[in-house]
């Protein structure tokens, strides 16, 4: 560090940066956001492994690895820089969490690759996809392999010595009409809340999802409006349709959908009001599909449909600029 600084030297050595304001940056980078979301998803993942055994873990690993590799391969193919920003990992993990526990690995690989390659990279990659990749992958598999995607199993006590995984008991999804719960209502709610119930590996434990989601809301990484309005709409609608409200809210993929899928930045509206519209729409479509549709579960499809509406919502539901006066704005605009 010499005390005399020669400006002419400074100029040519490229030691002066010229940038637009602001010259300070919050430093909360995309990668940081993504890894915090991943950390928040660790709890549902742990619950998945706890309830559905090591196979759930393998499923998660396979799916995340596929997602990452697909993204890497496509970025190389497109000759674009590959950033380890964690978005592919989130897609892979979320995708794994909405799979049934015993789906063959090759199906999971196809689904995860589809999520990244078609639903995300074909549209230009992170930030440009219209549909939530994880849900698109799940919907793809649900149409492709309806049988494999609807064979549910009761959580297995794999960690108890002497318990063979082969004895896993098949069960209907709690939301389907053929589902019968043997036990009291209270016990059903308890199982639904803690996750001791048949379903996709990551969606059964409402508690784990709730904790992860609340962490993200507190850190202001996701907007509270979407889960609140979404779940609220479904609850209110269930009340009107005369369904069991608590059951409707806790069962199926509603919790993980509301906290982790519908709040996906890229595919949901950017404004607060827009997000409320989005969540309201998703809630109504979920209710319609659950009550009238032929599918037992409507969360994935309802979010996908609202994803399609997102550009329109962004276009028409937007905040009024500060001090906005119609007359002046018109004069300025044209």
């Amino acid at each position, binding site marked *: 560090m010499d005390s005399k600084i020669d400006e002419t030297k*400074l*100029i*040519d050595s*490229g*030691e*002066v*940066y*010229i*940038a*637009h304001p602001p010259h300070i940056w919050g430093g909360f980078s995309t990668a940081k956001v993504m890894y915090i979301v991943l950390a928040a998803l660790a709890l549902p993942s742990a619950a998945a492994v706890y309830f559905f055994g090591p196979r759930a873990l393998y499923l998660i690993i396979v799916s995340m690895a596929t997602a990452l590799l697909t993204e890497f391969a496509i970025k190389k193919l497109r000759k674009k820089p590959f950033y380890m920003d964690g978005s592919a990992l989130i897609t892979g993990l979320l995708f794994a969490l909405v799979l049934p526990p015993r789906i063959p690995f090759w199906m999971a690989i196809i689904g995860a690759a589809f999520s990244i390659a078609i639903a995300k990279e074909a549209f230009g990659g992170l930030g440009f996809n219209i549909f939530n990749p994880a849900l698109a992958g799940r919907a793809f598999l649900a149409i492709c392999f309806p049988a494999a995607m609807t064979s549910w199993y009761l959580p297995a006590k794999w960690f108890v010595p002497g318990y063979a995984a082969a004895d896993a008991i098949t069960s209907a999804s709690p939301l389907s009409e053929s589902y019968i719960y043997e036990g009291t209502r209270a016990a059903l709610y308890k199982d639904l809340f803690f996750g001791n119930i048949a379903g996709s590996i990551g969606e059964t434990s409402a508690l784990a999802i709730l904790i992860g989601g609340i962490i993200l809301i507190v850190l202001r990484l996701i907007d509270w409006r979407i889960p609140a309005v979404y779940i609220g709409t479904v609850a209110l609608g269930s009340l009107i349709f005369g369904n069991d409200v608590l059951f409707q809210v806790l069962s199926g993929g509603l919790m993980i959908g509301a906290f982790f899928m519908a709040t996906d930045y890229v595919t949901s509206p950017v404004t607060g009001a827009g997000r409320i519209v989005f969540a309201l729409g998703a809630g109504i479509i979920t209710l319609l599909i659950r009550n009238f549709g032929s599918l037992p579960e409507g969360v994935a499809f309802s979010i996908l449909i609202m994803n399609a509406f997102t550009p329109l919502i962004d276009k028409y539901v937007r905040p009024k600029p500060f001090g906005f006066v119609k007359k002046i704005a018109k004069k300025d605009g044209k």
Partner: protein
Amino acid sequence: MLWTILILTAVGLVCAVLITLTYRFLPKEPESLKKAEAINANLPGMNCGACGYPGCFAYAQALSADKKVFFSNTCATVLQDEDMLAGLESALDMKVDKSALNKKAVVACSGNCGNVGSYTGVGSCKTASKLLSGFKRCPYSCLGLGDCIKVCPSNAIRINIRTKVAVVDPDRCTGCGLCVAECPRNIISLVPADTKVVFLCSYKDIRDIPGREKCESGCIGCRKCYKACPNEAIIWNRETAMPEFDQDKCTGCGECIAACPHGKIMLLSDVAKKIKE
């Protein structure tokens, strides 16, 4: 069988009668629209907007109203295309003197002024020029971030790799003028296509000759070109201390080009060579 023929004929007849009736009894369509459509058929249809109208059809409508529009807002693409021009001439019933309207864009900067710092912002000239001084030493220099390339409809502009300056290929340039409007430094200009020599520097300040602080190869007003010209085609502008060229007197002999110590003067036809450097 009989019914088939009868019904088909009847339906066809009814339809035909209906169409004829509407065609006959409704007021005639506006003449201008018909004419505009005829004109539009002779326009390129790429809706580039360089003529100053939102699209080719809007331009056609304007032309149908007043054909003089073609001279004030010339469609450069038509000018380049013999067939289209002939079609338009017959559609508008006029004759176009092509050489008078034919123009080429020239970027009046030859680089070499160097950067004052590393620019960390957006890769767009317009954005960079909003910074206090851009990132080049000379405030009249080409920033080389390629805003003109993005707007060029005929893909005629390249950035010279060595000098980092935009260069227009006169062979491809249609003279539409979109880049002229786009350049935030206002250093691109349209010159008549028959221009022989062009001057590649826009610096307008008084030059500091010994220090040459802005640009290593900027015009320093040495007047060598002025003295070298055998045809008195160079006029010395005392205000800007820069040469101006009288294209009528210029024969393209190349004396001034040889005389210029910094290669600021160039034959228009040679500009394209710079691209390949």
